[in-house]
């Protein structure tokens, strides 16, 4: 890990979006848009170059302030971080263009809506910081940057339901991060370091580690809206401005998942047991079924999509039991399925990020066109807005996991890991999840094919909005194509592929 060469790219991944965020503050609404767009483009470029450099070198690091851990903070751009940063950049640039067009074309937005730009660029920097950080406390600060700017974005519409949902979200976020920080305090007290790498070497089984594990896991689960701490998500994502819903559902919840995954695989392995994994897995299975069922029973499009997030995040939780080895299993044997489980985690994250943001953007188009997002707004969509309907179809297919989409690949890997590890009992949950997901996806498509009432409004929608939704849908569908390359890049460095051996920690086969 530390043998990666030092580079300035990790620093720029945080500094560039923030520079532009500060720039946007100086402009009025129109200028904010242009400077914000410039910032998005610049950040995307930096992300692309940084990822290219990481691919070339295997990974990059940056010692902030020139100090070595444990005194200083290390930024680590390893393959896993690179993939998440890439996901953020692709979603981010598409949503940025959508937002530019959206904010300009909508005239019923409050005056503060142009604050979208500084808040979003700060959020982007915070996310990049989260993926790069190798330091527990710095992660806390990054979590807060992300959390506060996310809630700030969530309440931009200024409408009471959004404010209410935003406050609930904020309280959950604060509680979650305090819980996380308590865990950090315990670990620091016990091991005298905040650096993940040093900590993973120092950590020992025992009550402190277990308690920190529980606190941090619960805190991060709340922030990621993992079942049963998901209650805040549907009202929040259902009431935000469409580009914000897209960003929050695609990226923000993934940030805390990323930290959780890293902590479990790198730090807490010694204190984890097979049963702990099963418990998390059960939460995941319950989320898949409960969330999908709730989505099926919603009347408003955005609420369907929001509840679907709860379900799709459940698949991510189901990865954890597959990473933890049952007592007596050899790591070499387990490499068969741990690698699949990691692939499932990454691909589910990616495909959900793209598919869900595409769906929210498409929902935004529908709201503009019809004036609302009740079921009637979908009628005859295929004829009225074929591009949006196609985007919903593609994204929906990926969400359902039908071949040969990105979502299919994720579910394939998840099922494969479940069956190969002998934990076949996750298969019915995956199966039921796909079945119910198909239910609500095709409920939307069914309405889209049904003939419309003559009184359904069809106001003009800027073309760019539809293109952004389609772009993300296409991305979600076709990320299966570079899978081979992505996975071999990921496999080049821990923690990807490592199995969690209870009592020992993460072990690479």
């Amino acid at each position, binding site marked *: 890990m530390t043998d990666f060469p030092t580079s300035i790219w990790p620093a720029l991944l945080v500094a560039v979006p923030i520079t532009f965020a500060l720039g946007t503050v100086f402009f009025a609404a129109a200028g904010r848009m242009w400077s914000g767009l410039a910032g998005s483009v610049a950040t995307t470029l930096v992300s692309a170059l940084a990822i290219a450099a990481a691919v070339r070198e295997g990974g990059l690091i940056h010692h902030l302030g020139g100090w070595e851990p444990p005194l200083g903070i290390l930024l680590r751009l390893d393959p896993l971080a690179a993939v998440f940063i890439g996901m953020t950049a692709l979603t981010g640039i598409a949503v940025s263009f959508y937002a530019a067009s959206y904010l300009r074309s909508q005239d019923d937005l409050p005056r503060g809506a142009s604050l979208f730009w500084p808040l979003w660029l700060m959020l982007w920097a915070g996310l990049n910081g989260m993926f790069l950080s190798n330091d527990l406390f710095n992660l806390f600060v990054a979590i807060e940057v992300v959390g506060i700017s996310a809630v700030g974005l969530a309440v931009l519409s200024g409408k009471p339901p959004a404010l209410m949902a935003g406050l609930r979200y904020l309280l959950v976020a604060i509680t979650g991060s305090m819980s996380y920080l308590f865990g950090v305090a315990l670990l620091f007290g016990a091991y005298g370091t905040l650096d993940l790498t040093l900590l993973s070497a120092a950590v020992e089984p025992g009550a402190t580690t277990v308690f920190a594990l529980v606190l941090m896991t619960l805190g991060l689960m709340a922030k990621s809206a993992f079942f049963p701490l998901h209650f805040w998500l549907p009202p929040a994502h259902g009431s935000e401005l469409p580009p914000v819903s897209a960003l929050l559902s695609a990226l923000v919840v993934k940030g805390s998942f990323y930290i959780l995954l890293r902590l479990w695989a790198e730090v807490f392995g010694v204190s984890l047991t097979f049963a702990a994994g099963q418990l998390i897995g059960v939460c995941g299975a319950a989320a898949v079924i409960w969330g999908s069922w709730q989505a099926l029973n919603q009347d408003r499009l955005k609420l369907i999509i929001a509840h679907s997030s709860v379900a799709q995040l459940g698949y991510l939780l189901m990865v954890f039991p597959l990473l933890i080895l049952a007592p007596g299993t050899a790591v070499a044997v387990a490499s068969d399925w741990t690698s699949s489980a990691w*692939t499932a985690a990454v691909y589910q994250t990616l495909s959900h990020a793209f598919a869900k943001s595409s769906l929210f953007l498409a929902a935004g188009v529908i709201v503009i066109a019809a004036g609302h997002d009740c079921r009637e707004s979908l009628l*005859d969509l*295929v*004829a009225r807005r074929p591009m949006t309907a196609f985007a919903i179809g593609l994204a929906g*297919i990926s969400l*359902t*996991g*039908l*071949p*040969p989409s990105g979502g299919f*690949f994720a*579910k*394939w*890997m998840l*099922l*494969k890991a479940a*069956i*190969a590890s002998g934990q*076949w009992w996750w*298969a019915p949950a*995956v*199966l039921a999840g*796909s*079945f119910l997901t*198909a*239910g609500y996806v*095709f409920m939307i*498509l*069914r309405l889209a*094919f*049904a*003939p419309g009432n003559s009184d359904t409004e069809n106001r003009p929608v800027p073309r760019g909005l539809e293109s952004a939704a389609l772009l993300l849908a296409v991305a979600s569908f076709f990320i*299966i*194509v570079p*899978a*081979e390359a992505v*996975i071999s890049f990921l496999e080049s460095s821990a923690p990807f592929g490592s199995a969690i051996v209870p009592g020992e920690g993460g072990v690479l086969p």
Partner: protein
Amino acid sequence: MTLQQWLPLLILISSLVPGCIIFLLREEQVALRTVLNLGGAVAKVVLVAWVFLAYRAGETFAFDFALAPDLTFSLRVDQLGLFFAGLSAVLWLVTTVYAIGYLEGAPHRRRFFGFFSMCVTASTGIALSGNVVTFFVFYEFLTLATYPLVVHRGTEKAVNAGRTYLWYTIGGGSVLFVAVVGLFVIAGPVYFGDTHVIAGLMEENRTMMTVLFFLMLAGVGVKAAIFPLHGWLPVSMVAPAPVSALLHAVAVVKAGAFGIVRLVYDVYGVELASSMSLLTPLAVLAAFTIIYGSVRALFQDDIKKRLAFSTVSQLSYIALGVAVPGVLSSTGAIVHLVHQGIMKITMFFAAGNIAETYGFHKVSQLNGIGRRMPWTMASFTVAAFGMIGLPPVAGFVSKWYLSLGAFDAGSPWVVVVLLVSSGLNAAYFLPIVYRAWFCEPDGAEVHKLCGPANLETRAFLLAPVVITAGFSLAAGIFAAAPNSPLTFARQIAERLYLP
């Protein structure tokens, strides 16, 4: 890779690309769309014929492409796949002609023909799939491509039918998915025909392999409409006639039936499957479905619904033939893939013609229709006789081989099932034939029937039905000819039982 290696892919592209272009066309570009449709369909037939000739000459075809880790997209050509691909290609050409005539002037034709092409792409994809994963991909793709066709009319009835169709097919797809993954974990990427791979793994994983067999059977059984998974088929007959033809004869149900054939013959191998007594449950289910479908068909007044239940029944002939081991049964099963297809498509075309020309949907409205539509009803009659199993129509050949095979395998009860079924077939098809030819038109209908017309209906509608009826007859009369479906089926079956 020589050009010939790309041929399997070209077969797919010949319908995929026209389909994609059609989506991009404007609604009113009728001429271009028609050219694309027919061009694609003709090209597909030519390509299949080319591949067939090359295959005959000893050429092998393998197109492999690693889509993602674990997922190798593989197209292979073998006799069985080619057989099914040929059926799809020929019937697609006929159905395209029919659909162009049927939907003349209807709205949303761009969408219709786009998905129509996707549908056939999927079904030829299923035919040419080299491994289980590729088969699964196309199997699901078929579901997606047919859904818009089922709900095409957008009426409440159509939309509800679409919902039922989806619940069944997605459910089946999910089960198949789990089974395919399970098979992959145990056996790696299973290529069709490599039955020794599974046989070699049998010892250690007996229970698992049995479970997987039935999971996969349930997965493909949904599309093959085996009881109790048949519920979607009668409901989705609300779709336009060409779609029904496609669903019932070419693409969907055939994909299911073909799946069963592949599963038993090319994944597990017929010897292994019968030695593990996996086939008995299948035989019993199939036999039950045959009788059940026929009985239900008796009580339908709606023509298309009667035909739909008849399909449920007829499809299980294939499953039954597969479930009874032996060369003759297998021949009967495989040849019935084609025979059922050409006969049933004839009947749906005929029903569509009647509905399109006179607006009749009920059996009870058909009195005297044969006089106004002699060609259509003659074709229908040929197909009906075939379904009943009267010589010299194709259906007789299938039933004959199935019965011989049953005796061979020592399961005479199968023959009883076939006989009962034939009786029932006669009981629900003959009344239609009788009404059409021998009943006087009712008063209300007389007026309509006397409308002036040179042809009984549009040429685009009439030609396909006559052609497919001709196929049905020819397949029966020339069953022994060197290039008849029966000959091919027999070759395929014999190869299965080579030591």
